[in-house]
């Protein structure tokens, strides 16, 4: 089953290949699908055979072998996912990513057309591979970074493959890419994001609509892509300011269904260990960074262009509105997150926003504010601080940020004065509650009983099923997307502080 996909691509190949194919099939049958790992001797035979062929057919041959060996290994083993033979890795690196094995033998490079053909073959393979697990393993065998010199070409090929998958809407590849974005160091993720942004945002301006439509096809990929682009565009320079088209697209996605932002988080098992330095589990902090820094950064951009005419400022206003909308969505997602955390009994036990990341953000904001202080930008500073304060408050109240108000005060001590921030730092004035009994989160009863919760519970395995909430059969009512009140009174952050803000 697993190799039928490739079979069709090889059927018109030369005879030698057919023989190879036949041999493999026979071996499969004889060995009763138990020990299929090709030994190094055979592997070197294969390599020699491959060296004689043209690069495209050699690459295809390697893919074929990869499929056979991993596919059958996965079928036979019931335990953990089988590892990749070192020899196989070498074949992949030599014949697909063209890293020379010997100094003396320089592998033949593929022409651009051949490379495109190879990409097409890969695209089709992943599309037609019906087993999620095999597809996933092959993808990671090809594109997991190995910390060697092949990584650069890996990235190059991956960028092209994902870009192509977006263009022709190959959902299985996008799903694999989503997993890749979750397991790979953020530096590489940012590079992939950069490639995609170049392809879809910068080089061809109207191509963004293609990307836009991907959201309904693979929301998981989009969720990860958002995290990646927020890591990419950090407002550190004009180049690293989010392009307006991108911003508009993201806001569109998020307002369409805010649950998108929680997709990766919800579908990731709690105990899964993610590699160090990978992307944040949600795009929330990244988006928050955008919203808080945007007023300051745009102010900075505008300084030299003050006399530049009308167009700029209008674009600025449009972006301002988008950021405002985005900020609101982020707050609303925090409220949704609270429902989820409450349902899973995770309140106070899981830091969705790591305090360190928040601290970094506060640090950045205070630095930006300092830079702007000589200029009359008080309004923009206040807007940024309002948003920061709101986000901190809502994140704490919803249990996304585990931080006591004392710590918050220490954290924010260097920020300029802001009324709301003061209020948030000091916390609400505690008064006898108007209702008897503690305040409970208000679970909104569904009008239609028996409807499953919109946020699926943590599953033991990362499930690649399409996001249930986005399937067209389920009506998207606002109830579930709607916030519920916080279990405020019980929250460790809800402590009184005598100091009150100045107004």
């Amino acid at each position, binding site marked *: 089953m697993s190799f039928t996909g490739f079979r069709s691509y090889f059927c018109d190949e030369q005879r030698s290949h057919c023989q190879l194919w036949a041999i493999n099939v026979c071996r499969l049958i004889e060995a009763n699908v138990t020990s299929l790992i090709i030994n190094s001797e055979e592997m070197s035979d294969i390599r020699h055979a491959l060296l004689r062929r043209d690069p495209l057919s050699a690459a295809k041959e390697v893919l074929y072998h990869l499929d056979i060996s991993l596919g059958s290994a996965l079928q036979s083993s019931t335990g953990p996912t089988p590892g990749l033979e070192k020899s196989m890795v070498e074949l992949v690196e030599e014949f697909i990513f063209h890293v020379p094995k010997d100094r003396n033998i320089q592998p033949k490079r593929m022409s651009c057309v051949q490379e495109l053909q190879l990409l097409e073959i890969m695209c089709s393979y992943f599309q037609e591979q019906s087993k999620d697990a095999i597809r996933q393993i092959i993808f990671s065998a090809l594109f997991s970074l190995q910390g060697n010199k092949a990584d650069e070409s890996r990235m190059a090929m991956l960028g092209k493959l994902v870009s192509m998958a977006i263009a022709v809407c190959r959902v299985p590849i996008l799903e694999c890419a989503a997993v890749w974005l979750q397991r790979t160091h953020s530096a590489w993720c940012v590079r992939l994001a950069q490639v995609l942004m170049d392809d879809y945002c910068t080089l061809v301006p109207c191509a963004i609509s293609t990307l836009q439509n991907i959201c309904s096809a693979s929301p998981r990929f989009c969720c990860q892509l958002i995290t990646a682009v927020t890591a990419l565009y950090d407002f550190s320079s004009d180049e690293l300011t989010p392009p307006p088209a991108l911003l508009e697209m993201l806001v569109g996605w998020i307002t369409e269904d805010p649950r998108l932002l929680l997709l990766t988080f919800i579908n990731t098992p709690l105990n899964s260990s993610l590699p160090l330095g990978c992307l944040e589990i949600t795009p929330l902090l990244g988006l928050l960074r955008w919203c808080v820094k945007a007023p300051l950064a745009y102010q900075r951009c505008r300084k030299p262009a003050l006399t530049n005419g009308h167009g700029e400022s209008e674009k600025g206003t449009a972006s301002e509105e988008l950021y405002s*909308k985005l*900020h609101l969505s982020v707050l609303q997602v925090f409220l949704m997150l609270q429902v989820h955390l409450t349902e899973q009994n995770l309140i106070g036990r899981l830091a969705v926003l790591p305090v360190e990341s928040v601290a970094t953000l506060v640090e950045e904001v205070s630095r930006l504010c300092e830079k702007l202080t000589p200029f009359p930008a008080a309004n923009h500073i206040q807007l940024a601080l309002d948003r920061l304060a709101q986000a901190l408050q809502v994140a704490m109240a919803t249990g996304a940020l585990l931080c006591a108000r004392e710590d918050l005060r220490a954290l924010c001590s260097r920020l300029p004065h802001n009324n709301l921030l003061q209020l948030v730092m000091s916390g609400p004035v505690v008064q006898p509650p108007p209702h008897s009994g503690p305040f409970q989160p208000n679970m909104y009863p569904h009008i239609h009983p028996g409807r499953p919760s919109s946020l699926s519970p943590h599953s033991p395995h990362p499930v690649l099923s399409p996001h249930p909430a986005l399937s067209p059969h389920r009506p998207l*009512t606002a109830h579930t997307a709607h916030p519920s009140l916080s279990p405020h009174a019980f929250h460790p952050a809800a402590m009184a502080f005598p100091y009150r803000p100045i107004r």
Partner: protein
Amino acid sequence: MSAQGDCEFLVKRARELVPQDPYAAKAWLITARTLYPADFNIQYEMYSIERNAERTASAGRLLYDIFVNFPEQPVVWREIAVITAALRNDSQDKHAQFLKGVFETLPGPVQCKMLLKATEQCFNTLEKAEMLLLLLKRFPESVVQHGVSLGESLLEAETVENLDTPVNCFRKLFVCDVLPLILNNPNMCLPVSLLYKYMHKAAEFYICYVTREPSADAQIQGSQEVGGLKSPGRGRSQRYVIDGLSEKSSVVTEPWDRLLEMVGVVGSLCDWQGEKASRSYSELLQRVSELCRYMSATDSEGFSRCCAQIVTCCTLVLFHSAFHYVSAVQPSLFQGHTSLSSCPWVLLEDLSGVYTDVEVERKHTHKKRKLADGREKTMSSDDEDLLAKGRGRHIVVNKAEMPSWAETLEHFRTARESWDLLHSHQSLETEFAKICSLWKTEIWMWFRIFLTDMIIYQGQYRKALSSLGLMSSLQLQQNQNQNQNPLSGSSSLETQRAIIQQASCHYALGEYRMACEKLLEVVSGLMPQNHEAVKSSEEQRKPRSKTRRGNDLRLLPCTSKSILPFCLQLMLACFKLRAFTDNRDDLALGHVIVLLQYDWPQGENLFLKAVDKICQQGSFQYENFFNYVTNIDMLEEFAYLRTTEGGRVQLELLPNQGMLIKNPSPALGVELNTLLLPGAQKADRHHTVTRGITKGVKEDFRLAMERQVSRCGENLLTVLHRFCINEKIILVQSLP
């Protein structure tokens, strides 16, 4: 700084931001709510933003929150009052639609609580009922708790308000909205007596709704509806408003069907015998009449158990059929029908046999006389055995003039059968009488019309006359109640309808003088039509009149065109008996001859009989002859009678001749002649008075004949109409 100060600050900031940056405003409020989750103003501000932006789902969600968390806030109650008001009225206004949408997003229990609470705040019974109704419609489980009490409060309100018609807003809500909920709720367990009470309330409403009188503006509207006879329930609701309700909610579609459905439901709830949810009213009747036959044959106890069922079903069938009959016979009585689209009809004795009687009389003179005498005797009292005579009577209708004649007669028959069944047993009759007095059916004009026709059909003419008397007093009363009655102009013939029926009844009773008196009263209000048009319609019914004779009835259109001929025939019938008795009565014979001109030569045989009689007498005196006889055949016959071959009959047909012979005083003669003759004959009078008595007579007769021949082309109906009006006194006086 207080918590309240914080909240005010937060809300104020949000409010400031709404116009320029609504997203930021919401972000502020979300933050504020996480800080002060128990503050009402923050949440109300959130709701206000969503409501003002008409975002249904989020507004609903927030309304839910504030409703649950702040149930005592007056602001919340004001909001709920606004929303529930939008639910009650059927406004298509965008904001009202939005508010309805908001309500729909709320979870059921909250909707339920909200409606109950809103109901408590209503002081107006109607509003309160409408509000509760919203609740009951949405939450069937609440019907058990509130259904009956709501129903009773509506019925009570009706009593308290002292409304004069069951077609009022309270009853409408009760019957059309509350009752179906109560009856169709499987968890309701109502006592049978209450079920009957509700059923009767509903029936009264539906019947009165269907039979409501036309309103002034409906008259104009209704003129476009032709063929409304077939389904009187359809399209008749236009532009009719029940006081207190909107035009839309005043509409009751297919009332009879609804009523039948309700009978089915109530029947199954009451465990009716043999009840299988009848699909039509006639089926309903058939079922109960079977039941009635079966029950009375067995035990009296079982019968009393079924009594209520029989009476209820039978009553409904009676009113259903009677309504359909009357709506065909007098459509202008009801909303949606007009006198323009169809004329009223009147049930009368069939007189098409008035000309053919002569042969029978010739052959069986004794028998006929005996019959006639017998009739005079028995008709004077409504004997029981006359009921038997009423059975199997035939009703003649001109099928071309009334296309739905078969249905109409069928409805008439069904209604009579239901009536008979209701009066077949003492206990049934008592029950039925109770319903009638409860519904005040005695003031239902339309039902009185049916009853009268039924009594006429039964041959109880004395009773029919008193029924007609009741009818005219009812009419008088109703006209007084609504002085601006739009029908007053067109109803002239309708009021005469009763008089014609009275005439017909008097005739059937043998009271010819009364009959004639009534007739002439009618004729004076009629306009003579062109004779030819009438003739064609008369010819159409000829074959029928030959096969069916005697005791038949006829449905006649209540128009001058049809009524004048009937009057003439009825007069002929009155005078015919008198004219052909053994005693000589030239005046009666003369009237007969005049009247026989109509529909000539139908009455040829009768005319020949009259001629025979004149010949036998050898003389004949009828001074009006030349005024009213223009028929050339008759003139010829009379001219012949004077000749030797004709038998030298002495004819005194000129006015003065008779006068001079009878009364030698010329002065008196002149006086009388002036009275009796129209102006055209004045010259002759002087002429004849100064002449010799016998000498010039022959010459005068010849001249009169000649002149009369020239009058042959005159409109006969005009001549006969003039005859009725001018000779009114003589005509009435010449009858006993």
